[in-house]
């Protein structure tokens, strides 16, 4: 029964979040702050993880290419398509649920237990909308951009690591990443990113907004937010893959 109760409360909160803002200018400013805080400040970690992910993927594909009849260009192609279809969207989504999601839950949860949310309500501000809507817009906007950066850095990672360890030549790798490119794969993953971005921001905000108690409870809520967001990302990955591919 708890899952139905939680789901109901989640949708009730979303209704509150998507009600008319009091002052559009203040919300817009808040959204830009969130884009900087949640998005721009994530570029570094996305770059580092993607470079390693691309490098490792290139090595894995190369070591599994035991058949001499298969051309080495498949190494670049394998890395590119893995990044575009799954790694830079889903894996990055799981990582961002940890980074951005826990940040959102702990920020809103701390505001709840220190009565800052009550303070907003007393002023007549729709606290749910003011705190959560800019975060949802920011993450939904920034996540597709982080995805594109992740694909780029992943391909660069493969280009650095593959030739460096002798798994593939630069020419084969570059030919591979240009071979049989399907633009729809990018469209498909960008759609996934929009859904994952919404899930990361809204589910994490829900757990923060509904926290009761003190600092310990904020920590617990943060963990629950990350776990639940991860599960939802994987479920929606499955659904969207079945529907769109």
């Amino acid at each position, binding site marked *: 029964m708890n899952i139905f109760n939680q789901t109901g409360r989640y949708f009730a909160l979303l209704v509150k979040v998507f009600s008319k803002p009091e002052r559009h200018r203040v919300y817009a400013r808040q959204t830009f702050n969130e884009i900087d805080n949640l998005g721009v400040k994530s570029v570094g970690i996305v770059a580092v993880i993607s470079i390693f992910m691309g490098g490792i993927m290139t090595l894995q594909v190369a070591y599994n290419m035991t058949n001499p009849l298969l051309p080495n260009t498949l190494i670049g192609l394998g890395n590119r398509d893995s990044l575009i279809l799954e790694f830079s969207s889903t894996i990055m989504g799981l990582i961002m649920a940890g980074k951005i999601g826990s940040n959102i839950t702990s920020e809103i949860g701390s505001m709840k237990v220190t009565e800052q949310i*009550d303070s907003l309500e*007393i*002023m*007549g501000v729709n606290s749910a909308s003011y705190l959560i809507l800019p975060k949802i817009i920011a993450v939904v906007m920034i996540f597709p951009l982080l995805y594109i950066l992740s694909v780029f850095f992943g391909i660069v990672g493969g280009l650095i690591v593959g030739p460096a360890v002798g798994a593939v030549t630069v020419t084969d790798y570059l030919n591979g990443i240009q071979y049989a490119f399907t633009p729809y794969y990018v469209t498909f993953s960008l759609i996934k990113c929009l859904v994952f971005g919404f899930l990361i921001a809204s589910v994490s905000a829900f757990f923060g907004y509904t926290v009761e108690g003190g600092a310990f409870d904020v920590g617990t809520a943060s963990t629950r937010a990350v776990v639940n967001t991860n599960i939802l990302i994987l479920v929606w990955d499955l659904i969207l893959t079945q529907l769109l591919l």
Partner: protein
Amino acid sequence: MIEIKNIYKSFEHNDVLKDITKVFNQGETNLIIGRSGSGKTVLIKSIVGLLEVDRGQIFYDNRDFTRMNHRDRKKLRQEMGMVFQGGALFDSLTVEENIRFPLDMFSELSTAEKQKQVDFCLDRVNLVEANKLYPSEISGGMQKRVAIARAIVMNPKYLFCDEPNSGLDPETSMVIDELIHSITVDLQITTIINTHDMNSVMEIGDNILFISEGEMCWEGNRKDILLTDNQKLQEFVFANKQYQRIRDERINDQ
């Protein structure tokens, strides 16, 4: 003026407020006093609408708050200011930004006019020098003063303070009490303060409601309180022997 009539509130069969009726006057510091856990915070949160009452009515200058729709409540809340126990300042904003926040959200004033109003409030709470600091960079007493400044920046008609002196030293507590009292009188607002600090009661208690275990036990003012024959109030007031001595002196003087 705020009037509450026959307020009841319970949490999962635990009756926290039972039949509370009281009029809180304009231009006076109205105190709700009682031991910890007596229901003071639940009462003040019910009055401002952060908690919904189970039964009873709340009137703000004859406007029935309990029957208002969401939009009217939101409008009325712009006439309220509240100082929370911990200050509840926004960590990510400076002192000045905290005070300006309600103006940015609701007023149509120009930037210069907003700044003038913020400066006035900062001056009122004697914190002009701290305007660019963040809440984490100022003391607890200063945080309370910023919270008061933020609460009055929209020129509220109603001011609520939940334990404004908690965690403060006696001297700072007196400063906060005097500040709230002078603002109440100068701006002619209806102020309700939750406290269990007897010093506050004796300094600024114009109109006092004593509640015990969720029930109204006594009402009066600071002059009457020491001479009360209410058993529960006596236990509360004279837990501090100093007030017992003061009462004995008064009786002897009479």
